[in-house]
Each structure stands twice: as structure tokens, then as C-alpha cells.
């Protein structure tokens, strides 16, 4: 990662901007939503690999900063939502796409399926993903 940051620093003009945009593991909230109501059904479980990836990325940026390549100019956390039509669609996505870094406990799966099944006709399932955006300037 640090080598890649060095390459980015090389191809940026002096005073160039690096934007680091990425999700962070943070026990993302699961909700069943409709036009009428929002029900929280639980949180995903952060797995060690996801947490290690986040720490490795943070460490790489700290190293780039320590190397004198970049200075941090701004940082913000914000949420984005992933939205599925059904609870099973959400489970399938988590089990196939996010399997390495988050998990879904069985009681959370049951609670989400149940809330979706008894919910309004327009009920959908969403996960609130924590995002980090950081602005760095090339030194």
C-alpha cells in the first residue's frame, strides 16, 4: 500500500490532491424501511479481516504522511445506504460479496426476515455503511 501511495505521489503535480474514499467496518446498522416507517433489526458483525484491512490502510496513510509525501487537509465520516428489495436479497449479497469482512448472526437474519415479511408492501432492507473521505495534499 505504501509503495502505491509513493507512486501516486510521483504522478501528482506539486500541490496535487489525493482523495482517499473508502468504507470502514463499524457494525453497520440494518433496517427495514417503507414509506411509512423504519425498523432497526440489528447490526452486522465486523470480521477480523475487515478490521485488519482498515488498520492497514490507516497505517499506510500514516506512513505516507510520515514520509513527507502528503499533508492531511480534511476528513469526514458519512453514511451511504445499500438497499435491497427483500431480506433474502440482502443476505445473499452479504454472503457472497461481503463474506470476507462482515458476518450476519442468525438472530439478526431472523429478525430482518421477520420485520420485512410483516412490513408494508413497499418494505425494503437497507444497510448503513460508514464511509471515510480524506483530502490529502502533495507536499
Amino acid at each position, binding site marked *: 500500500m505504501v509503495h502505491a501511495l509513493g507512486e501516486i505521489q*510521483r504522478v501528482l503535480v506539486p500541490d496535487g490532491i*489525493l482523495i482517499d*474514499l473508502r468504507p470502514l467496518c463499524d457494525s453497520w446498522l440494518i433496517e427495514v424501511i417503507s414509506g411509512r416507517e423504519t425498523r432497526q433489526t440489528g447490526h452486522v458483525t465486523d470480521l477480523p479481516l475487515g478490521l485488519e484491512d482498515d488498520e492497514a*490502510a490507516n497505517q499506510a496513510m500514516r506512513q505516507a504522511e510520515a514520509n513527507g509525501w502528503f499533508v492531511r487537509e480534511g476528513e469526514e465520516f*458519512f453514511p*451511504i*445506504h*445499500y*438497499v435491497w428489495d427483500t431480506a433474502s436479497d440482502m443476505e445473499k449479497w452479504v454472503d457472497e460479496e461481503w463474506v470476507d469482512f462482515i458476518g450476519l448472526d442468525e438472530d439478526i437474519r431472523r429478525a430482518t426476515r421477520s420485520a420485512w415479511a410483516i412490513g408494508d408492501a413497499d418494505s425494503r432492507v437497507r444497510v448503513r455503511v460508514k*464511509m471515510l473521505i480524506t483530502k490529502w495534499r502533495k507536499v
Partner: protein
Amino acid sequence: MQKDPEGNETRHLRKFADFQGKRTLEVGCGEGRLTWRYASASSLTVGLDPDRNALRVARIDCPSDLAEKVYFVNSHAEHIPFRKETFDIAVLAWSL
């Protein structure tokens, strides 16, 4: 599946960088999902990704009005095939 239907990601990206007239490198562009959100403002955009299949999708999906100023390159971030001081902005898109 809908991802970020509220557009929070795009809003924050534009808040943190002014892409107008800039030469932009996106590292880990994948299929170009994020690329299309700022590329119309940039004077030149290069999307870099090691996944050839993702880049194939990106090239197919590239809007016709961006075809003259968006390019995709199959490469790893550890070896960026451009000379020094080529870009004004670099975006690490879910790739650090």
C-alpha cells in the same frame, strides 16, 4: 440492489475536490461506477485497475460524451505507467 440512492458519496467527493478542468487519476476504478460522477468536469480522466474484466465493462458503459476524455488502463497501483507530475487529482476509490 441500490447503492447510495441519496448520492452521499458523490456529494462528498465533489465537496472535497474541485474536478473542473483537472487531470484526474482514479486508482481502483473498477467498472467506473464512481468515474461517471465527476468525469464530465475533469479535462482528462484516467481510470486504473488491475481487473481486465471490470475495465471491459467500464469501457462499454462509458457515456459517449466522455469517450474523448476518459481512458482506462490495466495496471496495478504499485506501477502507475505515467510520467511524474501528470495529474492534478488522484482518487483512491475504495482501493486503499
